[in-house]
């Protein structure tokens, strides 16, 4: 069993003529809180979209080590057919299977959940329903049981509601359980999105700018919550964040991205004193850094 939960090897992503990510490689250690930082446009969200399966990487290998087995993110998104498939029927069958039934959702099913920079909630559904939808893969989906409202179905539904309330308690949202998600405040929506991601029982969670738009008090509370994700829920956390105070406080490990390349990796202290990082943030000429 690897001690890393996620390994990224030479990830590149090209949009038309633009090389958004260039040979990005890093690992995320199991049980850690890892931050991905960098100036605007550095490619942080692109990295997130690649590892959570929203983009298919142009090249590179992305592997998750969750649920006691490695999962190739490239594979579950569906790969183009290769010539040697003809001789390897098993490989061909798996390719066809993932072409048909693969996709972004497989990454979540493998145990990596995420939140978004622009909050993505089901605004016209209630908070509880938002959390129930996240349990789609675990509830009783039998058509028969549902139509005839059997005992097993009722129990499964109630269990999903109870699970939702447990999480609302943790995220201090119980009072809003039966409100529409869209009518809550921004900070509440951020918390709900994290709670909803946890509902899918992930082993790792990727938070894209969780503190964006929060006031200092809310950011403080968020930092505690992120630490709680590790202690209470035993999750590995990876986050993109611009609030350096918070990043330095919560993370064990930091990866710095600039112009689609990893320019530094290390503990917060190492990053804080890295000249390349300072240059990237303060905008020093490239040749000066080299010197």
């Amino acid at each position, binding site marked *: 069993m690897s001690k890393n939960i996620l390994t990224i090897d030479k990830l590149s992503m090209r949009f038309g003529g633009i090389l958004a990510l260039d040979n990005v490689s890093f690992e995320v250690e199991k049980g850690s809180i890892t931050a991905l930082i960098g100036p605007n446009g550095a490619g942080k969200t692109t990295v997130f979209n690649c590892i959570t399966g*929203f983009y298919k990487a142009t090249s590179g290998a992305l592997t998750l080590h969750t649920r006691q087995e490695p999962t190739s993110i490239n594979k579950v998104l569906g790969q183009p057919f290769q010539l040697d498939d003809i001789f390897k029927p098993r490989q061909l069958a798996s390719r066809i299977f993932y072409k048909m039934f693969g996709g972004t959702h*497989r990454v979540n099913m493998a145990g990596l959940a995420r939140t978004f920079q622009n909050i993505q909630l089901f605004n*016209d559904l209630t908070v509880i329903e938002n959390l129930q*939808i996240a349990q789609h893969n675990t509830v009783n989906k039998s058509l028969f049981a549902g*139509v005839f409202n059997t005992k097993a179905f009722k129990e499964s539904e109630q269990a999903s509601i109870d699970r939702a309330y447990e999480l609302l308690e943790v995220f201090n949202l119980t*009072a809003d359980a039966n409100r529409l998600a869209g009518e809550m405040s921004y900070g509440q929506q951020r918390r709900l999105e994290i709670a909803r991601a946890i509902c899918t029982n992930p082993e790792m969670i990727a938070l894209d700018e969780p503190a964006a738009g929060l006031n200092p008090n809310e950011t403080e509370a968020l930092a505690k919550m992120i630490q709680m994700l590790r202690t209470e829920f035993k999750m590995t956390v990876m986050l993109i964040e611009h609030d350096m105070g918070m990043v330095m406080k919560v993370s064990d490990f930091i990866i710095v991205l600039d112009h689609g390349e990893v320019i530094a990796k290390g503990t917060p202290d190492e990053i804080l004193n890295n000249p390349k990082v300072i240059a990237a943030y303060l905008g020093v000429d490239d040749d000066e850094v080299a010197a």
Partner: protein
Amino acid sequence: MNIKHSFLDAFVAAILATIVFGPIMGIVLDGYSFNLDVPRVAIIVGIIFVGRFVFQLTISTQGGRDFFQQFEKGRAGSIEVTDPGIKTVLAKAIPFIMLAAAILPFFIGKYWITILILAYIYILLGLGLNIVVGLAGLLDLGFVAFYAIGAYGLALGSEYLGIGFWIALPMSAILAASFGAILGFPVLRMHGDYLAIVTLGFGEIIRLVLNNWSAFTHGPNGASAPPATLFNLEFKRTAAEGYTPFHEFFNIDYNSTHRYIFIYLLVLIAVAFALRLKHRLVKMPIGRAWEALRENEIACRSLGMNHVTIKLSAFMMGAAIAGVAGVFFAAKDGFVNPASFSFIESALILAIVVLGGLGSTVGVVIAALLVILIPEVMREFSEYRYLVFGLLMVIMMIIRPRGLITIKRDRKFSTKGEGAVVETKQGEGAA
């Protein structure tokens, strides 16, 4: 009040109206020549001028602006979270309505029974399409293809395979759903709007094949379909080999109305079942998933839901219901031909769903009844019905794109009773 501005605005509108309506309404082609019809152009331009003038005057006042603002509000929020288990007056009345509907055919003539059967078939179609469009948010413009598959399933099934109504009913549903799966699986992973045009193309392909493949489908002449039977009792004056006519078995006089009453009751049962299904679906994980996909596909995918198969399930379920409706349609007429399955039918079903309010069950039932019955009651209206449906579709989309009826969502409580206690505090504030 700004009279000058309003007048100018109305004047511009009148000029545009003259350009738009002038040639087509005013100059009626007659062979290679034409007849002038100036008065009707003058009337419509006059109406537009006055209408625009009054509208502009109204919104230049505070009261007028407030009045139109109501519609803006209606567009934004029409969702209410209510306690579960509270039965509305309508819910309490449903058994009585069903009972009344069940005894109705014994008091009306054959003509009206057939009209009502058709209306119920359209309720079924409307409910089926409502699952696809209203719940899952997938615009299916080839819905009539699945209806045709159901109808031809009975007609051709009995001709080539010798199956009867009762076998055809589930078979057609499965057949239609399979076609839905074959079409939907590759298409549903694409951008939403493409689905509309692909299903439209598919609907036309089915109709053209039915029309042109004469050797198999008898082409435009159509195919005959067997009527429904009650435990092998046929509703005919003289039954086929091995069957007994219904009237002989019960020792009553033959009456051709019996056959229609029987189909009427069967369709009514199907409608009741479909209503129940729809009612339950929205409370089930799959129905929730459909609504979630309609709301936000990106979020769904991030939560481990396979958007393709979930959409496909809605698409197939809608198709299956249309297939069942098709079997009833074929059994009612005893005959099918491709002309019954043109695009206008798909559009009519869509009109029912849109006018009833996307996602609303009651709305669809009422809209289907109105759409089928009004042209029967008011003959002069039938000339204009599609024009009116078209206008209403546009107006509905502008005023209330989410439908006329307030959507109700259930409150949900934990076993410990959380959610209920807080409700009293939060109730007013949240609404």
